């Protein structure tokens, strides 16, 4: 027996309630700030380009994940990509259930490592892996430089 006295009545069970009361404000990082400023001002996505090994990455990075050299070159990759995968999500981050599922996709871009994960607005009949999709952005005045500047991706 591990203990000399144990709980044998469920009326003696108890718990103590508490929280971790923290708030956060995240900067977007050097590459992230560039990505979202460009999205906000020019309405396009940028990838980072490694001048040593040529690997292009989206979301952009300040370093190359392959050769670990620093990156200083970034280039527009437009707004169009290919639907790599999608899912119909029925619950939010707190576990609340949606009436209608949110369709979320991972969009990859030609010849570029990485991709963008975002909402899709595509007819059920067209919803297939590999289709060409394009980001629909908020009007420039409403853009704040965040993931919400992208409304969704639509079929081209």
């Amino acid at each position, binding site marked *: 027996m591990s203990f000399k006295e144990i709980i044998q009545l469920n009326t003696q069970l108890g718990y103590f309630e508490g929280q971790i009361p923290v708030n956060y404000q995240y900067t*977007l990082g050097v590459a992230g700030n560039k990505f979202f400023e460009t999205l906000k001002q020019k309405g396009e996505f940028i990838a980072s380009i490694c001048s040593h090994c040529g690997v292009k990455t989206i979301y952009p990075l300040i370093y190359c994940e392959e050769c*670990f050299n620093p990156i200083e070159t970034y280039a527009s990759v437009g707004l169009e990509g290919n639907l790599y995968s999608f899912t119909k999500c029925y619950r939010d981050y707190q576990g609340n259930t949606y009436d209608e599922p949110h369709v979320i996709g991972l969009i990859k871009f030609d010849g570029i490592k990485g991709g963008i994960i975002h909402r899709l607005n595509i007819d059920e009949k067209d919803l297939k892996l590999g289709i060409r999709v394009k980001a629909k952005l908020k009007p420039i005045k409403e853009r704040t430089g965040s993931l919400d500047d992208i409304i969704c991706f639509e079929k081209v």
Partner: protein
Amino acid sequence: MGFRKVAIVGAGITKFVRRAQETGPEMSYLASKMALDQAGLKLKDVEMVTLGTAPDAFDGVHMKGEYLLSGAGGNNKPYIRNFVGGGTGVFAPIHGWMHVASGACDICLVVCSEKMSSCHPHPQGAFLTIFDHTTEQPLKPTLIWIFALEMRRYMETYGLTKADVARVAVKNKNNALDHPSAQVAEAVTLEDVLNSEVLAEPVHRLDISPASDGAAAVVLASEDVAKRLTDKPVWIDGVGWNLDTAYWATKDLYYPRYVEKAARMAYEMAGITEPHKEIQVAEPYDPFDYKELHHMEGLLLCERGEAARLTAEGYTARTGNLPTCPSGGALGVGNPISATGLMKVIEIFLQLRGEAGKRQIPGKPRVGVAQAWGDLMQVGTVIVLRR
């Protein structure tokens, strides 16, 4: 069977800043890349990675180790995060030592990163929940309480004055003027410290190191590889760590026994029997000024209760008999928790190689010790380096 020797062959560090634009992974990259460059290595040469970082509650990401991994060079490698609270920065190279000393690899990258500014408006909120959730948190403790309680106990036990303790802050903040990473190096005077805002008596604002963003990294290598890479390897001669119970109010706070136990473990491995004579440079953890004194005693670098007097006599100045925190320490350089601990290890590394620049202490030191402390007055982590 002989033991495998492990050396530090490269080091990298960022500036410690109040608020970084860089994300945690970006900071980890900057330090890692610099360490690899200094060692003359590429990421592909790195066989394993261990990352040390303090609470997830700072950066604001659950499973923070996984979040940082791309920047720490962990993609497609055996990668793990070690965590002993505030003691992590000195424990991380100990963890790296395990990787190499075991024969699991010849080259291990050790990275520490902390982005405390994400915790908004102030990381103090994250410290509330280090206390016991049921028996202590309802009292709404602050982190400063526990330091103030310990500091008073320490001062009372040895009859020390505020000035006796504040001299550490003066020394370290002035030392930090020569450190390129320093966030808060200031030519402060004893009066400045004593007259700074009282937060929780006896703790004043300048007794405390600031919250910071920063990262540091070292590259560890096995003996053969180290000798190939550099003609000045610095060997990890002893490692020790120790964790006391979290019932912190049931032990006498005037002396850190857990640090002594960790130190004895490291000294025994390093064959050090008279640390106060054999160790020539020390970087004890100094998140608060009295902590440096506390830790010097725990590290057996002086008699109990003597550290303040030695500090006043200049014994711990860069030109003294035992230069202590020649880097400027957490008080001067800044305190991005885990990165601070590793900054201290890097300082000993540079001092032993004679490459500490304006901070270089005289006498060509051969043996040094770095130490960090953490948790609720519980963790001691100690590393002994030898040229």
